[in-house]
């Protein structure tokens, strides 16, 4: 399982990568905003995308929309991990086709639970 972690803060990327490793996902890669992430996704054969919302350059919500609009990428599961907590934003992300939404600050248990839920739905 090849996972791309997108966040403008390197510390947050590192936290997510560490948590993912504890959950058994070791093939993780990083990008610091949507515009760096998109070309990586297009050429990198990623299986999963975890992205922040609020980033300079291309924001997470626009990355999600770009992924869903791309014929090759549109079925890739996307988990949003973000401090954005307005109801209208969560609804916007849901309408744009997000597979899971985690608000920061979050716990390892929450990340594990949301990943399980997404995989369950994909496999089932």
């Amino acid at each position: 399982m090849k996972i791309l972690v997108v966040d403008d803060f390197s510390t947050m990327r590192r936290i997510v990568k560490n948590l993912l490793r504890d959950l058994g996902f070791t093939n993780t890669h990083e990008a610091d905003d949507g515009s760096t992430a998109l070309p990586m996704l297009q050429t990198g054969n990623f299986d999963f995308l975890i992205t922040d919302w609020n980033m300079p350059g291309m924001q997470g919500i626009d990355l999600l929309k770009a992924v869903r609009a791309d014929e090759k990428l549109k079925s890739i599961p996307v988990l949003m991990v973000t401090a954005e907590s307005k109801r209208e934003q969560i609804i916007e992300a849901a309408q744009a086709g997000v597979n899971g939404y985690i608000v920061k600050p979050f716990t390892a248990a929450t990340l594990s639970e949301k990943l399980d839920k997404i995989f369950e739905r994909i496999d089932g």
Partner: protein
Amino acid sequence: MKLSDKDQLEQTISQTRELLEHLENDEIEDAQELIDSLARGGDEDLFVEIGKLTRRLHEALTTFHLDSRITSIAASEIPDAKDRLNYVIERTEEAANKTMDKVEHCNQLADVIAKDSQDLLGEFQKLYRRELSPGDFRQLCKRIESHLEKNKNSADDLHSQLSEVLLAQDYQDLTGQVIRQVITLVHDVEESMVNVIKMFGNIDRYQAAKGESTKAEGAEGPIVNKDKRDDVVSGQDEVDDLLSSLGF
């Protein structure tokens, strides 16, 4: 009530006539009284003028003070505050990375201890099932000895790594002080702006605007006053509820 210039002139003429009459009639005491009252009248005007001057001087001084405060805020304190806040970002990032370095190192140590222990437990099961030859048993004893030796070193290493994690938390004190200074500056800026509004602007509009809540569009980052907002979720549970209500 203020007398008009014409009234003032008429009053002065009548008072002068009165004074002349008193003097011509040798009424010295009455004349003196009249002069005193005229003089007092003059004092009052003088006091009013001095009062006006004092107020103008005070306003001029306040404006001057305001100007120098704003100048210093714009010229040095705001750029300084930006440096201070960048310092906070650097220190917190440094502390986070340092802590994660140590934690990753500790995790590796813990993983090795867990794996070695697991292997040895397997060997022990063989021992209980009497599946070990005397040679295997000697090997097992050696492995246990080296495992204990390694564990002791790992425990020492863990202890020193964790002490460094503890020390890395000193950023909280340092950044806390810096942030407090910036909060004071923000407060001063607010005060100066209110002064400017009081002197040159519309204080009523300011008071009205104070009551309004500003609604930010788009990404806002962490919401610090969640209890005062009704458009945000309070935590993951509310996110999950909202998403499930949408059919997720």
